[in-house]
């Protein structure tokens, strides 16, 4: 993944956020990671003060999204990203504890690019995040228009 790609990590559990970051780094991904602990601050960052998302035009973003957020639902964030003119091509990776079939289908229907269930067991968790990191290192991310 080119270095200019920014990883937007929306994850309300700071411990999870730290573990994810550590394991992504271990996979050799050195891109900038911008963490958000709640949905609204992430939305403010993504869509800018005018709410159009134009603020991120020309930037390459990859969104790592948790669905269980305290203030707004991750599904809502996903929908808004995929409906936005500037952000819709940015890959969204859903990384969440839920493995409900209906929820997974809904996310893909809304345009999620990858859905990964957080393993409960830490070994598997770190393994999954590390593999995700490896995956990040090879994918192409388009710039927001």
């Amino acid at each position, binding site marked *: 993944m080119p270095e200019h790609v920014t990883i937007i990590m929306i994850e309300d559990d700071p411990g*999870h956020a730290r573990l994810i970051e550590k394991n992504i780094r271990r996979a050799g991904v050195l891109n900038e990671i911008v963490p958000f602990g709640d949905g609204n601050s992430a939305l403010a960052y993504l869509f800018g003060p005018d709410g159009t998302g134009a603020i991120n035009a020309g930037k390459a973003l990859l969104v790592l999204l948790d669905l269980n957020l305290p203030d707004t639902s991750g599904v809502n964030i996903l929908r808004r990203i995929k409906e936005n003119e500037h952000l819709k091509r940015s890959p969204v990776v859903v990384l969440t504890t839920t493995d409900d079939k209906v929820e997974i289908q809904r996310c893909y229907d809304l345009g999620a690019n990858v859905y990964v269930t957080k393993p409960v067991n830490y070994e598997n968790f*770190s393994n999954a995040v590390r593999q995700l990191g490896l995956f990040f290192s090879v994918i192409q991310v388009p710039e927001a228009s």
Partner: protein
Amino acid sequence: MTVSTEDAVAPTPSRPRRPLNQAVVLGAGFGILILISVISVFLVNRAREDAAQVAQTLLLENTISNLQAFLLRGETSQRGFLLTGDSRYLADFDTTMADLDRTIQQVQSSTVGASERRRALADRLAVLLQTKQDELRHTISLRRSGDTMGALAVVRTDRGEELSREIGSIINQMHVGEQNQLGERISASRSSNLWLMLVNLAGAVAIVGIAALALRITRRNTEDLRTAHHNVEEANLVLEQRVAERTADLQEANNEIQSFAYIVSHDLRSPLVNIMGFTSELEALRTDLFDRIATLRAQAGDTNGAADIALDKDFEEAFGFIKKSITKMDRLINAILDLSRQGRKEFAPTSVSMTEMVETIAATMAHQLMERNARLTVHPIPAIVSDRMALEQIFTNLIDNAVKYLRPDVQGLIEVSARETPGYVTYLVRDNGRGIDPNDRVRVFELFRRSGPQDRPGEGIGLAHVRALVRRLGGGITLESELGLGTVFKVTLPRRLVVEGNGGKHA
């Protein structure tokens, strides 16, 4: 939504006066009928008497007329004989006189109960007739003895003529009397008949009235019955509705519990991942730390590593406890999650051949059975319509338990059989294992509870899971056990599982 008890259907106020009304109407009806019958019988009798009296009067009149005729005939015979002296004229005289006597007797007897005047008339008539008869016989005997003149002289005295006139007058009087009597009797008979008709008419009107009243009462009763029926139906409807509402409430509560379990298990997992994650991080750090200490010590020329080794041991012990606890907690959370998943799974009832299914389960356990030197017997058991997966889990768990808790010193015997009742089948899973303490017979069905020595792997989930499933399948599970001798689990299931609309879906 809850329905308050005030909504209960108020019972329709009963009307106790109705039975009384009905009795009164019926009694009145019967009373009137009896009265009419009595009056009718009385009147009919009177009419019959009237008719008899009319007939008697007519007969008497006829008799009186006959009297006149006989007298006339007697006189005619006498005159003929007196004129001609030919005894042929006397041929009928004696019979006529006998007829006359008989007739006057009839008249007298028929006036026995009559009025004084009529009886007097009849008696007078009898006397006159006797006198007349004597006169006739006297003249005849005179003529027969040849004294024609003497006989004629008797006739000429006009004594016989006077007698005849007087007789005629009395007969006339009697005729008039009888005519009056007849008129009276006919009018009495008419009035009797009129009364009879009136009474019958009144009776008919009364009966029609009572019938109308009875009809009205019947109609009102029918109406009341219909209302009552309607009320009962409405009450039923309300009841059904309430049952449906309660069921919905329960369903909702159940769903809430399910989703609660799901959320709890989910939310418990998140911190657990952190604990596990950072414990791993700490372990990694420990290695780094001790490496660094070793390096620093080497640089400082300290060769005594014993303190480091002791420290490392303490670390190891602490980490061991933490990791064990984490693993245990992870298992428990997974168990709750599993249960809540099971609770939300929708059932698909199909016809399940239970014998076949249990034999399949037995086959998959052949290894464990052999290992423990146990034998499992599956009797032919009835098939039911239910959820196959759930049934498999129930019986796998029960048989697995039976195998798991067999006694090591006795050859294990496990037996699966069934008992049938209408609508339900009770499946029995019997073992000769170590049994369950009486104090634990309820507890074993609770989550995370286990009975007896904790020498077998397990979390205390199996039976809780089994009971939850059996209940969801519309059945129940009980156990009978003899500590140290064995246990029987009795699973009662409906022959046909009915799946209601299930709102069990959850994110």
